[in-house]
């Protein structure tokens, strides 16, 4: 079936270091969304990417959508303790009206 693979599963960094999580799809995606889930919380929408090669920034967060629309990445510059949580990508295939396929998530731990 259609899958979205997300790596790494877990990463811990020192505060101030950079962090990147990657998502790869077995099929072309019409768009991809990113969510953040704080420990004990629920997923909260961060951003949606639609266009091939699109790059969007939110302060220290940079989101990219690959040229082939099969991969995406989230890069955090100079992590802070407030960045702790699990980051999920969720891809929508062209035929999937309401079906977002979630990656397994990357859990980020930041040590002060």
């Amino acid at each position, binding site marked *: *079936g259609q899958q979205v693979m*997300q790596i790494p*599963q877990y990463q811990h960094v020192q505060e101030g270091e950079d962090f990147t999580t990657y998502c790869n799809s077995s099929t072309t995606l019409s*768009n991809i*969304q990113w*969510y953040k889930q704080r420990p004990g*919380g*629920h*997923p*909260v*929408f961060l951003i*949606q990417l*639609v266009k091939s090669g699109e790059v969007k920034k939110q302060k220290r967060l940079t989101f990219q959508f690959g040229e082939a629309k099969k991969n995406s990445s989230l890069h955090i510059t100079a992590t802070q303790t407030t960045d702790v949580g699990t980051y*999920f990508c*969720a891809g*929508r295939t062209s035929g999937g*009206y*309401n*079906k*977002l396929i*979630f*990656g*397994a*998530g990357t859990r980020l731990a930041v040590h002060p």
Partner: protein
Amino acid sequence: DVKVTQSSRYLVKRTGEKVFLECVQDMDHENMFWYRQDPGLGLRLIYFSYDVKMKEKGDIPEGYSVSREKKERFSLILESASTNQTSMYLCASKRGFNEKLFFGSGTQLSVL
């Protein structure tokens, strides 16, 4: 802000019991979803609904059913709970096709 409310934060049930998980959203969203979240597996779609009395199977519908009698309410039913249904259940809603998901706080269900 959209509010998605799930009736219970924690629930403990016995094997074989019928379990109802309730979800209410207050923003008149057409689309509602039930996901389960398990470590290392991300979020998997159980059922979704795009209108009152309409329902569609997600990726893992076996052992579950749903009910949507009113637009704001979407219920998940475990007909006969089993231990492998111990999980975090997340309800979500969204307005339209490419819109973002708003999640409830989740129900941690333990089936003993």
